[in-house]
């Protein structure tokens, strides 16, 4: 009897220890990013960091640390990805949630999850050997490694996220809404467009935001497939270098403890904040579409 109680209490404390460690380490990530990122601003002015498009930390004598060009690149690529992925993803989600038979749905859902499982380095590779050359040929460019290439690949990568979350939202629309619409003589398509999708609106937005988050944070794909040019992009046919790619390229060669080193953490902290805002926003919206039945 005594032994059982001892085990019970010991295990509780063991779990508590594990939980406390995990939580502290995970929260430590944020603390460390902020701590190291803030150090960068001892030598860089906030105005230069955010409003200069000139990033040249290793320039002899007068290094510059403006992230505007890479920030623009990140958003350009993400915007392109969303233009492609949102109609496709929401359309496919609508089909799976409301049109497809249960059997089709059960087969297609894991297949789409498989798309999410493809490592980003493989997607980047496809961008180099297939999508990039294809773009170059179609648009007559000398090099296909452009923002457009990145946008297409990121669209494919964010599709599973958008489809899964949006499908969940669309399926959660109560049947009574549909029945009411049908009983008024509306057909399936009208019901979908006028009743079901508006009812799932906030969940669909949450899905899009999460897909966007995935695209903003993606590293290897853009690193491999967008050409990595440090200039301000003028459009989708320019090569770009995103925030994530910059960290990936420069972290390997930067000396520990320099302003350059800390500036990469500042970029990382900014990325972290963006992803935090994206996730909180999505979670907040996704919570709203749950209908109480």
């Amino acid at each position, binding site marked *: 009897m005594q032994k059982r109680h001892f085990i019970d209490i010991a295990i509780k404390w063991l779990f508590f220890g594990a939980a406390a460690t995990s939580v502290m380490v995970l929260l430590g990530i944020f603390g460390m990013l902020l701590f190291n990122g803030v150090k960068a601003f001892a030598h860089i002015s906030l105005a230069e960091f955010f409003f200069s498009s000139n990033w040249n930390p290793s320039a002899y004598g007068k290094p510059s640390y403006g992230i505007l060009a890479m920030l623009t690149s990140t958003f350009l690529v993400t915007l392109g990805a969303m233009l492609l992925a949102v109609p496709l993803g929401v359309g496919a989600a609508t089909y799976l949630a409301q049109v497809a038979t249960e059997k089709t749905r059960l087969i297609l859902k894991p297949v789409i999850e498989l798309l999410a499982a493809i*490592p980003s380095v493989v997607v980047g590779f496809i961008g*180099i050997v297939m999508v990039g050359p294809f773009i170059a040929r179609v648009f007559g460019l000398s090099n296909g490694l452009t923002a457009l290439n990145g946008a297409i690949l990121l669209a494919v990568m964010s*599709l599973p996220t958008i489809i899964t979350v949006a499908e969940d939202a669309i399926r959660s629309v109560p049947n009574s809404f549909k029945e009411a619409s049908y009983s008024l003589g509306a057909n399936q398509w009208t019901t979908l467009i006028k009743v079901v999708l508006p009812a799932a609106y906030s969940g669909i937005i949450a899905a899009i935001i999460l897909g966007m988050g995935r695209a903003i944070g993606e*590293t*290897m794909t853009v690193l491999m497939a967008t050409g990595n040019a440090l200039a301000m992009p003028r459009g989708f046919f320019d090569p770009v270098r995103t925030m994530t790619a910059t960290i990936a390229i420069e972290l390997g060669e930067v000396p520990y403890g320099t302003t350059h080193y800390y500036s990469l*953490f500042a970029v990382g902290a900014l990325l972290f904040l963006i992803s935090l805002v994206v996730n909180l926003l999505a979670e907040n919206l996704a919570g709203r579409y749950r209908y109480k039945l």
Partner: protein
Amino acid sequence: MRQNSLQQRLGLNTLRFFVLLVLLFLGIILWEVFSKGSGVINSGFLFDYPRKGMTLGGIFPTIMGTIFVTLVTTIFAIPMGIATAIYLSEYANDNGINRLIRASIRNLAGVPSIIYGLFGVAVFVQGMGLGSSVLSSGLTLGLLTLPYIITTTEEALKNVPHSYREGALALGATKWEAIWTNVLPSAVSGIVTGSILGLSRAAGETAPILFTGVAFYLRYLPGSVYDSFMAMPYHLYILSTQHHAIEEVRPLAYGTALVLLSLVFVLNIIAFIIRYRYRNFNKARI
């Protein structure tokens, strides 16, 4: 009314077309990798070292490296993740602080992987002096996987009916006995599925290991967790962007992509089968 039904046909077919397009993307990627990669796959490719500046030979050390580092990730992330989830779900009160902790963990599951790479460099490689090693990379990937394992395990525990806990306690079980004999057996397939998916993601990641331990080329397998290692995802990155003879090594790159993709898909399919069986089992008992 005619117009209306035409609209409906058009609309539904557009949706159908979108689904096919998504499937086509997956098909194209798989076809490209399988059709061009399968030619180089043979026992030499799987079990030999790279030769002649990586223009010939196999990818043996990269396969072993990926396995080693995923093993370290497993040892770290799975016990920690499951224990944390059990504490949060079974022991912790549902108060403000714990809700905040849960929300933070969910959010960390969505943080870009390169951020974990930054953390790994600052804390494991430099801060703790573990250097560029299997250990640093494994721990970094472990942190990346941890929030995912915690969330999926909590989800699995939440799905166990409350009455299983109450029933056991009412018969005089201690809390731990109720969890061990009644809650965990019902949640185990969900936990295993989540863990496998988490590890499959870790095995395919490149950004977090880029600066924490992976090496361009090594002539030996890592002898301990303090050595550097080669890894499949990084090898593919090198062969397709950094190699001096990119066109010449393209077939090797395809082969590497195929092996990596196969590994990840096998893990995913195993997870799917476990989940599918569990779902049927669940149906049977209602």
